């Protein structure tokens, strides 16, 4: 019956159809609250999250459309998490966007859904071109989202910068993919893997392609030295859009890295792991050192993201040791756990910024948080939990993320990797400085702004849940760790 494998694409199809329907429905909606559009979008995202989650629980791997797309536990969980992250983002953003003239139409929701669709396609792609298509859908939607405030010069500048650099990175990626296509004669990840494993292809050509692919991925993950766009876009974009770029999108970037590097190019791990090591060291250095000097909270979080992504790369590069992939599951699942806990924490941190901002006030300077503990103990507590989590202080989830990655590095037994673990640890000490500085501003400084903090009940509830989850997953991280481990084992084991 299902010769194409439509079932493998259920969430994508639902998302596409609903995005079109909502775009039409939105024409009849007036006002800046957009209640109907908002509700429909959230319901759609909840449905896709449930479908993806249900498919993930089933645990099977299925290919569709002549191996163009794959439906496996890792991908399904990432889709589920990305949907939930997008839901949280929209809940936090609603009043922010309404106050900033971003809701005259339903673009925020519709472009958000299309960018999510792009993420889904990237996550589920099993073919160079499908992954690239997903990436383009995601980034084109993101460019438009960043420029959504057409009268805002900084946002427009950020959009231009994002577009130019993003197009260049896509070019890098495409160039690398075409090199590999030329060398292996296939766009299908499985075929490419087979062709490379056969050992018949000249190594130099492959490595040449890998360099460009890694550069493209590095740009999308935002790791040094391909990080130039991150601080400017994070700071310049409206905070709601920053959260889309810094939150759910990271799942897709991680999936792309896993698909291309691990599922397609695992025999070249020796080569790309070295590149990842250099990128990771550079990111940890640049991210942590530059974050110290920031006074803008969004910009600081941008640099902190760069350093956090360095940690993800550290996890990914410890998969293959001396040509032996025995610790691959361990390494990749720790990287996945890291990215999940990172996005969870980022959502809550940006959620606080979004809920604190109001008409004509962005609340994106670190000093804007002064005395937050007196103004709203809940928001201050959520932000403090996030900062301690990012600094890797137990009992927050970020500690286990760091533990998992460091453990993967040390388990490899290579002196270089143990050295890298020590380096990462020293860098997190530097990181701790600027994270606890935010806590200091919130708890030790006197408030300069006495405006009462108001936010919708839905946003407050989601924020409280989000903050609680950062703490609860830190106290009981076993479930999420097991989930990541099983997803990776089932995905790579087949």
């Amino acid at each position, binding site marked *: 019956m299902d010769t194409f494998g439509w079932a493998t694409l259920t969430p994508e199809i639902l998302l596409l159809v609903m995005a079109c329907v909502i775009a039409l429905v939105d024409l009849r909606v007036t006002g800046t609250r957009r209640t109907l559009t908002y509700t429909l979008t959230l319901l759609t995202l909840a449905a896709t999250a449930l479908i993806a989650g249900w498919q993930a629980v089933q645990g099977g791997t299925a290919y569709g459309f002549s191996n163009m797309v794959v439906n496996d536990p890792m991908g399904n969980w990432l889709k589920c998490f990305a949907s939930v992250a997008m839901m949280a983002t929209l809940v936090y953003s609603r009043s922010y966007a309404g106050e900033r003239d971003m809701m005259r139409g339903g673009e925020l929701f519709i472009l958000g859904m299309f960018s999510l669709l792009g993420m889904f396609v990237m996550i589920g792609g099993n073919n160079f071109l499908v992954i690239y298509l997903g990436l383009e859908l995601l980034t084109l939607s993101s460019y438009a989202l960043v420029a959504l405030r057409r009268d805002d010069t900084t946002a427009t500048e950020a959009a231009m910068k994002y577009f130019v650099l993003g197009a260049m990175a896509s070019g890098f990626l495409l160039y690398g993919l075409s090199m590999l296509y030329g060398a292996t004669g296939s766009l299908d990840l499985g075929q490419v893997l087979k062709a490379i494993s056969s050992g018949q292809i000249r190594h130099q050509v492959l490595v040449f392609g890998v360099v460009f692919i890694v550069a493209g991925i590095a740009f999308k993950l935002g790791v040094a030295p391909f990080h130039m766009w991150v601080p400017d876009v994070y700071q310049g974009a409206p905070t709601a859009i920053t959260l889309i770029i810094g939150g759910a999108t990271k799942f897709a970037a991680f999936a792309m890295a896993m698909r291309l590097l691990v599922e397609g190019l695992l025999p070249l791990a020796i080569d790309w792991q070295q590149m990842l090591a250099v990128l990771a060291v550079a990111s940890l250095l640049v991210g942590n050192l530059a974050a110290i000097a920031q006074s803008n909270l969004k910009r600081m979080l941008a640099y902190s993201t760069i350093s956090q992504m360095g940690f993800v790369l550290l996890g990914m590069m410890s998969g293959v040791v001396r040509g032996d992939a025995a610790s691959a599951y361990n390494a990749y699942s720790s990287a996945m756990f890291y990215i999940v806990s990172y996005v969870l924490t980022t959502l809550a941190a940006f959620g606080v910024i979004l809920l604190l901002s109001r008409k004509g006030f962005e609340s994106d300077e670190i000093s804007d948080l002064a005395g937050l*503990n007196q103004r709203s*103990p809940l928001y201050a*507590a959520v932000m403090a939990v996030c900062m*301690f989590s990012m600094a890797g*202080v*137990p*009992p927050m989830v970020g*500690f*286990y993320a760091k*533990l*998992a990655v*460091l*453990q993967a590095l*040390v*388990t490899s*037994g290579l002196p270089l990797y*143990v050295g890298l*673990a*020590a380096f990462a*640890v*020293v860098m*997190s*000490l530097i990181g*701790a*400085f600027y994270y*606890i*500085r935010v*806590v*200091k501003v919130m*708890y*030790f400084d006197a408030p300069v702004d006495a405006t009462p903090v108001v936010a919708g009940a839905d946003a407050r509830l989601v924020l409280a849940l989000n903050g609680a989850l950062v703490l609860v997953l830190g106290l*009981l*991280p*076993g479930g999420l*760790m*097991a989930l990541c*481990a099983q997803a990776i084992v089932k995905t790579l084991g087949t």
Partner: protein
Amino acid sequence: MGWLSLAIWTPIAFGAVLLALGKQGQEGLVRWLALAGSLLSLLVTVPLYQGFRLGTAAMQFVERHTWVERFNIHYHVGLDGLSFWFVPLTAFITVIVVIAAWEVITERVNQYMGAFLILSGLMIGVFSALDGILFYVFFEATLIPMYLIIGIWGGPNKIYAAFKFFLYTLLGSLLTLVALIYLYTQSGGSFDIATWHRLPLSSTAQTLIFFAFFAAFAVKVPMWPVHTWLPDVHVEAPTGGSAVLAAIMLKLGAYGFLRFSLPIAPDASHRWAWLMIALSLVAVVYVGLVAMVQKDMKKLVAYSSVAHMGFVTLGFFVFSDLGMAGGIVQMIAHGFVSGAMFLSIGVLYDRMHSRDIAAYGGVVNVMPRFAAFALLFAMANCGLPGTAGFVGEWMVILAAVKANFWIGLLAATALIFGAAYTLWMFKRVYLGPVANEHVRELTDINGREFLIMALLAIAVLYMGIYPKPFTDVMDASVAELLRHVAVSKLP
């Protein structure tokens, strides 16, 4: 849930409830609830004392549940003779701190009390943890409430002190984390501390692990030359923070040596014992001299803490049961005495808002009852026989003399320096004629302050006159630890 878990989680649960009670006008409720919580937490340690079996070095009240399956991390707690006394001590000091803050803290009372109760549970967790990661989680988590306590309720330079405290201690413990992960891989995937005790390790590995642990524990103790954070932090911390810091938190580091460094890396411990002894002696002699010239009362007591903790590490690294037991007794005694010293300074500071020794003089004339207590605690701080301070120091000095006469001689000078700086401070602050108008207006301690002073005085005297309950508990465990450390673990 066993009694030990109750001892850990009761204060944390009360603390969490307190944090939720943030409204204006609830301060009265908050105070009583905090007192009830701390008393209940102290009460649940009583069955631990009654149920503790003497004469065995085995872990007691053990609870073990899987916590994180993927990394084989367990919620594994238990007590032996080395750790037992710190559980009631922590709960006791928390009760004192809650009472001491009663009228003094007026701003954000719920957060203050909540932070101290949570801190208390976390510290009990450190002393009971038998799993490396569980230990590390509790050990690190204590930084968060302490950071907030110093930063919110501290003195004028509180932010500098809070950052120095946080980053200094984090630096040390992060290196320890790498060592823990290394041990995890070497032991074939176990975070169980007892398994690590039996794990054979090469000489190089032991040395690296020893110094990785040293980074965390020496900073926490603090040993010379990484002690510089302590005076800065003590000066700025609120009274309760100083008391908990000196009485309990410093012991986390010393306890770490007993639980990790010595048994996991015994060969390295023996090899580097000379260094540890040397650093301890520098702490005892040099820091003792530094204490003498301080103008600030809190700074003086802080330096005296460093000197007293030097005795603890000295006792551990002469490798005799007298020395080791003496070190542990000194830890407990210093918990009572330093807590009492800081609370006494707090009593004066609440009235005069000055810690300068020069701002005082002749306090005994206006506060006779208080001065009597202060004299007792000062005597205990210099190690007068009959007070808690004497027992541990005496045991350590005896052990040191047995090991090497010159070490013993240097250690014994501490008795002179200790008496010098403590009594000289006592003379300048309390004795003589009334120094100025502010001192003349001082009022003697009220019932609440009398209560905390009396409780601490009873503890100090009881431990000084009859230390047997304390030493009995630790004898078997100390002997077992020494037996273990004497055997080489080289493969």
